[in-house]
């Protein structure tokens, strides 16, 4: 029973390369997916902006950043992936980036080099088939194998980024995954995908049912590690979203006048924004730390990811909820972007494990038992 050791902090700043990458992603996203376009898409059946995804993967190469060059990627790291996540978070861009990050982390541990390279290049998308709220640190449910062991049967509900996935990666034991061809338009052989209306309209959930779906069994997959990496990436998405909410709210309060004064001149409002800014500086620090732990293979990744998810979930939610409140009535209308951020922030605080889940996991990791 003792205080945990202090791991090396590493570099928590942004490099010039990361700044350049951010600028490229932002320029593309602002042009291709401004908030009103994102909002309009939510009223259609095209949940995913496949055109934006194509450009992000092919022009900027966002899907291959964490993949070594010799395996078909860009040879950057999870730090750069996290920067892209910040930008996509601030735009609530409807692209399967988070799911791709988790799938990539999983495939990097396997010998599936052909699949990995095609995912890295954006030719195909893959997704880990677990429920959206499953977080690292606890066993994930497995799907049952039938017959000789290469047919799957069972249902996994509420899978994120499965809408347009080409390949499904399904946990079938603690160390094995089944690789299943998803097929087009909702289902391949023995696979049925049902995408439902979701609280977060920009990241819809899919229920996946296997009924004798043919699969290829792959060993060496570390699902828990993939979920930790995903948690680190998600923390950066939450950071980007929170920054956007703060910036939009500051701009609105400076612009709007009531009682003959700028709203931004009222101390009650200034102090709320100051508190939010302080919380965001912390979100940035924990998100950067988690990303650097993922990038450097730090043994502290489980702690860093849990801390980042706990903290960033709450900060993003605060930013979105306070942002909506401080916009007043206009923030409650459909034709204002505040609800896009609110819905994403509320959903993100559950995706890959709730803050409560991560605190419980952390209790074991840092020896603060129940």
């Amino acid at each position, binding site marked *: 029973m003792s205080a945990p050791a*202090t791991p090396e902090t590493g570099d928590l700043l942004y490099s010039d390369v990361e700044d350049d990458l951010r600028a490229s992603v932002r320029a593309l996203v602002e042009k291709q997916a401004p908030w009103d376009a994102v909002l309009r898409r939510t009223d259609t059946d095209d949940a995913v902006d496949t055109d934006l995804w194509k450009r992000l993967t092919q022009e900027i190469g966002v899907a291959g950043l964490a993949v070594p060059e010799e395996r078909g990627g860009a040879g950057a790291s999870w730090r750069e992936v996290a920067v892209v996540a910040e930008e996509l978070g601030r735009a609530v861009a409807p692209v399967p980036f988070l799911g791709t990050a988790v799938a990539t982390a999983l495939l990097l541990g396997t010998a599936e080099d052909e699949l990995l390279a095609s995912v890295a290049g954006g030719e195909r998308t893959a997704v880990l088939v677990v429920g959206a709220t499953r977080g690292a640190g606890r066993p994930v449910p497995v799907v049952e194998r039938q017959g000789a062991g290469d047919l799957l049967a069972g249902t996994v509900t509420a899978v994120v980024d499965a809408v347009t996935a080409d390949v499904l990666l399904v946990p079938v034991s603690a160390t094995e995954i089944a690789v299943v061809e998803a097929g087009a338009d909702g289902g391949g052989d023995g696979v049925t995908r049902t995408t439902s209306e979701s609280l977060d309209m920009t990241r819809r959930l899919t229920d996946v049912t296997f009924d004798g779906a043919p699969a290829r069994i792959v060993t060496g997959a570390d699902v828990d590690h993939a979920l930790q990496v995903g948690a680190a990436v998600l923390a950066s998405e939450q950071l980007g979203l929170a920054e956007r909410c703060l910036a939009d709210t500051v701009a609105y309060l400076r612009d709007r006048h009531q009682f003959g004064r700028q709203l931004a*001149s009222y101390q009650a409002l200034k102090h709320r924004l*100051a*508190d939010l800014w*302080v919380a965001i500086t912390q979100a940035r620090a924990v998100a950067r730390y988690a990303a650097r732990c993922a990038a450097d293979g730090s043994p502290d990744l489980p702690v860093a990811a849990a801390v980042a998810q706990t903290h960033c979930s709450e900060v993003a939610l605060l930013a979105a909820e306070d942002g909506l409140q401080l916009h007043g009535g206009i923030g409650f209308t459909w034709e204002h972007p505040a609800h896009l951020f609110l819905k994403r922030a509320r959903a993100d605080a559950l995706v890959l494990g709730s803050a409560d889940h991560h*605190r419980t996991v952390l209790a074991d990791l*840092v020896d603060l038992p*129940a």
Partner: protein
Amino acid sequence: MTTTEQDGRAPLRSVSDSPPDAAALARRVEEFLAEHDPAGTDAADFLRARFAAGLAWVHYPAGLGGLGAENGLQTAVDAAFARAGAPENRPRLNVIGLGMAAPTILRFGDDAQKQRWLPSLWTGEDIWCQLFSEPGAGSDLAGVGTSAVWDGDAWVLNGQKVWTSMAHHARWGIILARTDPEAVKHRGLSYFVVDMTAPGVEVRGLRQITGEAEFNEVFLTDVRVPDDQRLGEVGQGWAVAQYTLMNERVAIGGGTLPRESGAVGALAARWREHPEARTPGLHDRVLRLWVRTEAARLTAERLGQQQAAGQPGPEGSGVKITYAGLNQECSSLELELRGEDGLRYPDYTERRPEVEDYGSRDAGWRYLRFRANSIEGGTTEILRNVVAERVLGLPAEARADKDVPWKDLPR
């Protein structure tokens, strides 16, 4: 009248060669130690010699305890002296002198003032205090009412200062006083050095909620201060005071902060040692504070990295707000974990505490002492204004004290 360093007088001692680098400093320390055996030399003599050799604060100019070296090289010099068992210059007792008075004297003092005060300040022979806050001027420091009136051959000071650390040890105090009550408040101030042993200076302990008297009240009654103890021009005291306060900011950075350091450390230790006190509700609160402390630690680390990279950020105000709150919440929860023990208190007797390590104190004492963290050195409310106005660019608070002579302000 004061001659400031901008007057272009020749430096006290000219150094023809360029400032020493780390290796050169290490050699000089080695040579110094060879000539002055820490074990065999009187502590005061040793420290005076170290000052004379320019190895006191190496970034200060030659002749004033330094060698004009880079600021960052001081740590290695201090470490080398510490390893050799060299005597210390009472750094904790003289924290105001070393951290705030000295840089202000260096910046605003003339040569005679620097020579007069800096050597004994650095050696710790003279302890310094800061006479800024008043009962009527806390967050609104520029509203101080202590008067300084010119009387032929000296300034005559009258007034009351409060929250003065170390005043009962101090030989000298830096003071902000009003020389022109007709002027708008920021423009009617001047900055002096007061001899704390002069007639009319009375220091009284100020008992605080822990029972102790850690700080002082200082009463000034017709205290005569010669004009050569003024720093900066008459009426420019606010600028000098702002420079002093800029140096108050806690230095962050320089190595990794330990995980679980600070108030959460005692809380976590208590949790581990007393399984019988655990409940699910308390568990969740402990974990929340642990996460927030870890986030604050990484934020301070990141700030340190930004400063080291030459990108000083405004995060300092945020770090201060955060740690004040964490200290308060962690110590409060720790009392709850202690149950009946949390109801006891070691000693409310009025006494003078020595400079101390908070971690070694009782949980009840820490709970009470930490209430001040969100008041001292800038209240959390003022710091929120700082963040809102200087970081987020929101409009400043409406003010009723602009363009009004200080004497006409309501109080």
